[in-house]
């Protein structure tokens, strides 16, 4: 079966390494809130007082976000060593499952978190869909390998 929307197999390993690094950096950011000055930038748009006004920002957290998304995408959507139709089906099933599960958690969070707390939930939600997919897909793959 021709699946041309997947990354080559090597990206999986690369993704895991980058994911590991991003999680460590992410935890570091959550705990210590570092703003290394070499990442201070002036951005010409997106300011709080009018979108077209320039704003100062430290790019550390954005960088972590970019790394996280890229690594999660690579881990989630790289080809297996031997791709075939059964693995394709597992992948699709897992993606549907993860989407339902992710939105179920989000719906629950709407009743449990309010104001800025909910904003935090939304930030985590940027990554959880892919995370749930990765866990579910690899679990299913592992189970079918053992049987």
């Amino acid at each position, binding site marked *: *079966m021709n699946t041309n929307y997947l990354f080559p197999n090597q990206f999986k390993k690369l993704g895991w390494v980058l994911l590991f690094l991003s999680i460590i950096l992410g935890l570091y950011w959550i705990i210590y809130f570092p703003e290394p000055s070499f990442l201070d930038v002036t951005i010409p748009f997106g300011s709080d007082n009018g979108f077209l006004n320039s704003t100062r920002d430290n790019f550390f957290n954005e960088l972590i976000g970019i790394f996280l998304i890229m690594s999660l995408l690579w881990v989630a959507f790289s080809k*297996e060593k*031997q791709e*075939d*139709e*059964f*693995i394709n*089906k597992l992948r699709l099933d897992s993606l549907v499952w993860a989407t339902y599960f992710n939105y179920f958690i989000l719906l629950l969070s709407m009743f449990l978190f309010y104001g800025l707390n909910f904003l935090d939930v939304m930030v985590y939600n940027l990554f959880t869909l892919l995370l749930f997919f990765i866990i579910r897909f690899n679990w299913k*793959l592992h189970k*079918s*390998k053992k*049987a």
Partner: protein
Amino acid sequence: MKNTIRVDRAIKNITQAKLAELVQVSRQTINAIELGKYIPSTVLALKIAQVFEKKVDDIFQLEDKDLA
């Protein structure tokens, strides 16, 4: 749908891994088909039949629940 792959493999004396290699899929796929957890595509069914030198419907048969 049930199938006789396990029996046919025994007759030809080949492992799941060997059959998987012959039809270019992973071993899990053959295992999932044998356990009835996965229905192969027509292409894969034809390839498997070719390995055993049989017709597809000698290997794969409909069950009552498929017709319900």
